[in-house]
């Protein structure tokens, strides 16, 4: 029971952070969905894994808010790939999110008696 609750908490926590992480990765270069998931896993040393379904939901929301735009590229003969591109409004939103994240993480570190690095 405790394990189930812990994994649910982890999932909720991840979902909250995934938006920030996806935007950050997209600020470096245009990426497609699978690539974003792979980079999240790689760069976190396997600590941050996400189901594609959850990621796409976040990406759809960001597209609707016009922070991201999409374009498709032909891969091979038949397949296409949808790339996500971070727009200027998305960059502003990302910098706001990073500031918020810094503030919250400072606050949490203070509460948990942890030294900030």
């Amino acid at each position, binding site marked *: 029971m405790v394990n189930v609750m812990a994994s649910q908490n982890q999932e909720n926590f991840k979902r909250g952070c995934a938006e920030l992480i996806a935007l950050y990765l997209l600020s470096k270069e245009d990426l*497609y*969905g*699978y*690539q974003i*998931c792979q980079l999240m896993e790689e760069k976190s040393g396997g600590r941050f894994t996400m*189901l*594609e*379904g*959850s990621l*796409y*939901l976040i990406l*759809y929301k960001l597209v609707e808010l016009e922070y991201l735009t999409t374009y498709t590229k032909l891969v091979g003969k038949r*397949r*296409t*790939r*949808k790339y996500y591109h971070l727009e200027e409004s998305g960059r502003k939103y990302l910098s706001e999110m990073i500031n918020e994240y810094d503030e919250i993480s400072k606050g949490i570190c203070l509460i948990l008696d942890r030294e900030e690095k």
Partner: protein
Amino acid sequence: MNNIERDIELYLDKIKVNLICKKEEKNRIVSDIRESVYDFVENNNINDIKKVYGHFGTPEEIAKTYYSEKELEEIKKTAKKENYIRYAIIGAFIIFVIAVICTAANSNRLLKEKYSRPRYGLVQVYNIDTNGTIS
């Protein structure tokens, strides 16, 4: 189409069935998942659909990730309401069609009756003789 491609398409079809949303939305979600599944299969040289299930989850699990439980309940309620309305419209249409058929059959029967009835009337007989006079 090889075996793994066929299995992937079946897998995607199952996801589509489990998604509760409009057709365009379903197509968008499935098309994005298709991209990811093929990327995963190609990058890892996979030819067993079980590995796809293991990595992405079952179609039911994937469909669930698109909605929170509350949203899922709301969607189901709306879908139920829409179904009731649909059934009501279909029912009304069937009743209308039956009514039209009955009315047509009835009027056809009346017409038949009308024209098959023997007719009585006066017939005046004229006689024309060889001189051309009518008597």
